[in-house]
């Protein structure tokens, strides 16, 4: 149980930091709304609703990338990560807590983004919402993990999208499938499978990212 107490404490630290500094969430919100406006003008008139559904997923992915790129910046700038690694807690707790925090930011951004999307383009069904929730888990789990690697490299912010996008292709497939297909069940199941597989992999290997 101390494991979850550690995770809770670490996640609360990130949420509290965001609440006080308001670095990430306003940027994500502004970005996602601006993206929708860009999409409106990049979709030719009379293009189908299906095209807009696809673009929703592009917007979610890039908004998430914006947040994930910031996720480990405080750790890097204040050298918090050294302290966390020295602390007597399981290293995977660091990843889990950070994932939960980024998931909270992404979820909060989507609470605004999805109604705005419905207002600008077309309504959103329950399957899409379920798809977004499942996809968010995968995006944050894998993205946080890769973000921790990316901040330790020379290329830093440049590297995260390159590392992340090939791994995010299955998420987009599952998400778009859940939004546009007649029977979204198997796409949702696929997203859940992705979450479980990559979640376990991240959980098991995070230790090697922060230690030598």
């Amino acid at each position, binding site marked *: 149980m101390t494991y979850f107490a550690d995770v809770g404490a670490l996640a609360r630290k990130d949420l509290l930091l965001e609440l006080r500094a308001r670095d990430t969430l306003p940027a994500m919100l502004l970005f996602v709304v601006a993206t929708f406006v860009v999409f409106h003008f990049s979709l030719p008139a009379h293009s189908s609703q299906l095209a807009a559904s696809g673009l929703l997923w592009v917007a979610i992915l890039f908004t998430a990338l914006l947040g994930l790129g910031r996720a480990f910046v405080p750790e890097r700038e204040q050298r918090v990560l050294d302290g966390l690694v020295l602390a007597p807690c399981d290293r995977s707790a660091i990843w889990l807590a950070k994932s939960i925090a980024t998931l909270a930011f992404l979820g909060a951004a989507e609470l605004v983004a999805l109604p705005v999307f419905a207002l600008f383009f077309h309504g959103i069904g329950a399957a899409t919402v379920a798809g977004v929730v499942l996809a968010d888990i995968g995006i944050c789990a894998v993205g946080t993990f890769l973000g921790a*690697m990316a901040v*330790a*490299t*020379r*290329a830093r912010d440049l*590297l995260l999208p*390159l*590392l992340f*996008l*090939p*791994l995010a*292709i*299955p998420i987009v*497939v*599952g998400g*778009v*499938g859940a939004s*546009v*297909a007649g029977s979204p069940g*198997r*796409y949702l199941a*696929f997203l859940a*499978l*992705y979450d479980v*597989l*990559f979640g376990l*992999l991240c959980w098991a*290997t995070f230790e*090697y*990212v922060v*230690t*030598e």
Partner: protein
Amino acid sequence: MRVVSRLSRVPLPALAVASLVLMTVALTLVFYVAPNDADQGFSQRIFYFHVSIAFTAYACFAAGAWKALRHLWKRDPGADLESYVAVHQGVIFGTLVLLTGSIWAKISWGHWWLWGEDELVLFLVLFLFYCAYFMLRFSVDPGPQRANFSAVYALFGVVLIPVSFLAIRIAKSFVHPEVFTLHGPNFGGWILVTYCVAQAALLLLAYTLYRVELTGKRLDARIRELRFA
């Protein structure tokens, strides 16, 4: 495992000669012995190489992940370099899969690229993924951290292969409704023999190239060590 450890003791020149001989036999079989395909005629022969190269690329990625696991788990010295070289060979063979697949698609369907062809799309995703592997590896200074990052990312690769394959399969129903069905070739006789020889030749070629690169890289590291000693 015992086969691999025995193979690793075979001297490099012998390996090179063996892969040259086997490759020549495979080329002869593919172009002179295997029968023409009833549907696609002569162009179908690229399949012997396309499929074998694809399998070889998977084998390289799997070997890279296996070495990565050895590095993380047992801390095998040298496993990091072996993993990197295997992934490097995998990317070379993966590029060849994309090339041979494009040529075949152009001849069969008149387009250089087909989103309906599962394996081509999968290799495009893998190509992007493993290119990012190189970006990651070369933006970290050599040392334990680079070895860990590379190993972890290589492990992500082997999980991504089946997941992406599944994704591409299920994406077809909404991205690409018409499904190409290849009438399975009558797998028997000379076709099977030719395929098996081509497969063996390419696997041996990949292993030889792997050993060549590994030897070069080790020599490089040794020289650097001596220079700074």
